[in-house]
């Protein structure tokens, strides 16, 4: 066993440190991103979750107020419609008819047009929360100069802003600006980022202070993310 903290910090212990909860925001986010791609790390995290979990029984249970279950039930009811929506492939048509959203409608028109007219299939992304719930649907303008973000599940953002990020492989997240939980938004992609709008890149939405991240990098939790895919 090595006593050098720098080498101990890498490798297998990172999973234990993550589960224990001692990592900083940035480190946690890095581990969360790796868990999605690295089954070995994921297994290691699960190992520690199972081993440390029983400690929680040392806490005295606290009954939550009844309103919590009431809110869960209400969300479930609203979820039902989304669930079926998501499971059906012709989501785009549903979006057009269902949510009188003009942007969503033009999105469908764009997707259909692009599909028939362009040799390059259009790029779309479904941004899901880590819990698997769909959060946003994104369609990219041909050429990658802009994109339309349609919120799929209404979430209460609680006095915070939603910021959209483009993450090219091996690079830091780049902000694409603020979006909204309640309506579709069209976002322009800065010229220098257009080349990075490819199926190798990931889009993510984080919760930020009102006005957006003060640092230029995500500072709040990532509530949804997804890869760009060809339609």
């Amino acid at each position, binding site marked *: 066993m090595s006593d050098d903290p720098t080498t101990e910090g890498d490798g297998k212990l990172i999973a234990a440190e993550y589960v224990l909860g001692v990592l900083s925001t940035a480190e946690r986010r890095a581990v969360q991103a790796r868990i999605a791609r690295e089954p070995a790390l994921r297994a290691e995290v699960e190992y520690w979750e199972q081993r440390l*979990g029983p400690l929680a029984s040392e806490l005295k249970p606290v009954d939550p107020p009844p309103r919590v279950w009431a809110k869960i039930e209400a969300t479930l009811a609203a979820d039902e419609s989304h669930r079926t929506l998501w499971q059906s492939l012709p989501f785009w048509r549903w979006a057009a008819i269902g949510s009188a959203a003009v942007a969503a409608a033009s999105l469908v028109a764009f997707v259909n047009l692009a599909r028939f007219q362009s040799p390059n299939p259009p790029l779309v992304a479904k941004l899901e929360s880590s819990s698997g719930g769909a959060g946003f649907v994104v369609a990219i303008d041909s050429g990658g100069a802009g994109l339309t973000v349609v919120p799929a599940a209404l979430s209460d953002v609680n006095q915070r802003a939603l910021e959209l990020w483009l993450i090219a492989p091996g690079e830091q997240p780049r902000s694409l600006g603020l979006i909204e939980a309640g309506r579709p938004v069209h976002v322009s992609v800065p010229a220098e980022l257009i080349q990075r709008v490819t199926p190798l890149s990931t889009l993510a939405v984080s919760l930020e202070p009102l006005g957006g991240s003060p640092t230029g990098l995500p500072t709040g939790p990532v509530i949804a993310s997804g890869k760009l895919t060809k339609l």
Partner: protein
Amino acid sequence: MDAPVAPSVAAAQDAARRQLATALARIAGGDQQALQFLYRETAAKLFAVCHRILLDKGEAEDVLQEIYIAVWRRAGAFDPNRASPISWLVAIARNRSIDRLRSRAMAARQRTIDEAADVSDSAPTALAQLEISQEHRRLMDCLDDLEPQHAGAVRSAFFEGATYGELAQRMSVPLGTMKSWIRRSLQRLRECLER
């Protein structure tokens, strides 16, 4: 399933575990009543976990709500062969609470640290000891093998979701010392748990 003549704590724990696993399987199939059952059985425990980390009733309620909605949406990810239902749920609760805690502004964080210092960490009572699962007892034995101060840091990290920096500050040791305490403890825990 063969029911023991004299019901033991272990058998009762086993039965509870199976019930929760069954509920999760039914939830994955879209059974809302199963979710309600799971909530009834586990919400008080998870609420305690969230509240201990967040030290804020309102935020703990928000996170609790998110947890069961997440469970509703991804109960299919639970694998009874690889995880105990309650540890799986506790992991979701801790992850979400810690992510929420980290997203707070620094000022709010500082307040939380100060409050956290005032809440003593509960060693289990004698009565609770009776109900301790085999896995938990094993973990406690392994924690007991650590230096008391190191074990204390591990517990604080687990219950409060405190970072290395916060733990170092609270226990008045350099950051590097805290890191090596925790890392050495984790390594020793692993060796002990696998013995």
